[in-house]
């Protein structure tokens, strides 16, 4: 029992224990339900299918996870700020179409990439502007953007794909390998490191959490909430555009119907990773684990021959389950 005496200095100093000091990386991971789910799924699929635990399939999983995870990293900032972005899947498709159209137009790949990412950023800035200046809930603003971006993607070639006359250099982002590792995996790791750093080691990450936790307190502390929110939406826009570039580049085709329901994958990954729907709490590494769970679930079920219809149903149940578990933990 801690005494309130003020004289016994030695005893008091001993009592200045930090209860959470043992929060090492391992501790954080073990405390993350998504990590347990990851291990469970990996063991389960290894037992039921001999094809699951092979070098090829593991590389395959990491390639597949890259698209979901890159979007989910941006989404982590959005949800941590107590907002949501439903337009990521449509922006992915639109960015893929733009990227391939630029290729057909003969633009060098470097500029093609820059312009595509710039358009992703612009879409995000627009979302952020609508949310901050018109004070629209992000749910509605990005729902509108979801249909706008999808409409634009479909409009570009009258609903058809872009596959003829694409410069080979444009395939590099999806199909090349460096030292045997597919480029999407390298991009995934690089973006993970940048985002992890941004979230945990910069004032920007701190402000993101502060806004999600208590926007009024953030404002009173002199933080420009609107500016931070607009940047957050721009980041998720860029992330979606990167995912669009990788998707189109991998398929070798710009398709206006890619990325459907990608927002569900990304949001599920973020929630599984421990980010609070109500904002204020979120980690990028948690999201990474969450994205792996979502991808392994899809990959394993596909290997087992479970239809994609059932996969959709299961993913929805996983999302509800993850949120329900959180309620119980309170």
């Amino acid at each position, binding site marked *: 029992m*801690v*005494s309130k005496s003020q004289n016994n200095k030695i*005893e*008091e*100093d001993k*009592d*200045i*224990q*930090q*209860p*959470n*000091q043992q*929060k090492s990386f391992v501790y954080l991971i073990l405390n993350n339900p998504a990590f347990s789910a990851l291990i469970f799924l990996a063991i389960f699929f290894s037992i039921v299918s001999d094809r699951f635990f092979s070098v090829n399939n593991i590389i395959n999983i990491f390639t597949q996870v890259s698209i979901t995870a890159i979007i989910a990293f941006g989404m982590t900032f959005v949800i941590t700020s107590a907002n949501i972005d439903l337009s990521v899947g449509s922006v992915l498709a639109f960015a893929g179409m733009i990227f391939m159209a630029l290729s057909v137009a003969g633009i060098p790949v470097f500029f093609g990439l820059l312009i595509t990412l710039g358009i992703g950023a612009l879409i995000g800035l627009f979302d952020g502007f609508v949310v901050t200046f018109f004070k629209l809930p992000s749910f509605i603003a990005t729902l509108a953007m979801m249909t706008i971006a999808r409409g634009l993607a479909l409009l570009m070639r009258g609903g058809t794909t872009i596959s003829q006359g694409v410069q080979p250099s444009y395939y590099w982002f999806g199909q090349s390998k460096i030292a045997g590792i597919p480029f999407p995996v390298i991009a995934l790791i690089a973006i993970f490191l940048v985002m992890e*750093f941004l979230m945990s*080691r*910069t*004032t920007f*990450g*701190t402000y993101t*959490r*502060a806004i*999600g*936790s*208590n926007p*009024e*307190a*953030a*404002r*009173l*502390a*002199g*933080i420009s909430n609107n500016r931070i929110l607009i940047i957050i939406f721009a980041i998720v826009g860029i992330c979606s555009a990167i995912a669009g570039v990788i998707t189109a580049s991998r398929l070798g085709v710009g398709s206006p119907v890619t990325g459907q329901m990608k927002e569900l994958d990304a949001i599920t990954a973020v929630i599984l990773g421990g980010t*609070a729907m109500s*904002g*204020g*709490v979120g980690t990028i590494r948690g999201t990474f684990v969450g994205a792996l769970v979502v991808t392994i679930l899809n990959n394993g079920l596909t290997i087992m021959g479970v239809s994609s219809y059932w996969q959709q149903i299961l993913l929805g149940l996983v999302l509800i389950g993850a949120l329900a578990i959180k309620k119980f933990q309170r």
Partner: protein
Amino acid sequence: MNNLVEMKNIHKSYDGVVALKGIDFQIGYNEVVGVLGDNGAGKSTLIKIISGVHSFDKGGMYIKGVKINPKKHSVKSAHDMGIETVYQEKALAEKQALWRNVFIGRQITNKLGFLNIKKEKEETDKIMRDLMKFRGIGVGADSIIRTLSGGERQGVAISRAMYFEADLVILDEPTMALSLQEVKKVLNFIQSIKEKGKSCIYISHNIANVYPVSDRFVAIDRGKIVGRFNRKDISLQKLSEGLIEYTEKVTQNKQEEKG
């Protein structure tokens, strides 16, 4: 000019609603001023103008003799001029760790702008040891604000103001939702501000709390200053009776206007 803050004929309205209608307000060096008034009287607007959260529409404000440009005054520039504000209840990000809250809005960063988390935690521990006197109660730099009591939270907010060495500490309803013991701690803190030669603006509904620690009182009603008193000249009883009388008169007038 011998005043720390001097406000002359300050007007402020939001979206057509007039909050302040020509306020003249001064606070000197080493002075504690209690600001009294009902909800919506304009107390919060007044202090948010001083602390840089809101700008003003008309009038002049001087801090330490420097004329303030309402368009350029911000929370940051108020901080730089030694003005710290402790807001009622919701001034802390509840899901965040204590150390993040202490440095919110002015993080310790290295040359590249990256957070120096180690330094921030060390400083927070120092603040808790030296200023908050949180000892042996299981509160640490990593504690989440949500897990603290109302008094502890207020302690964090007040210590934050002390740590940044304010010349003027503004307290907005600091004793709301606190236990009697915790109220006493806050009052002691105000006394210590005065002893250190600093100034304090203390806003509260509770006249009994404001009275013993303040040098002067200012009563605000519907955007105007309606009374100024020195503690030397007026007893607590007379002050509260006077304010009650005023309120009754105002209500009567209103009813007559309507009738």
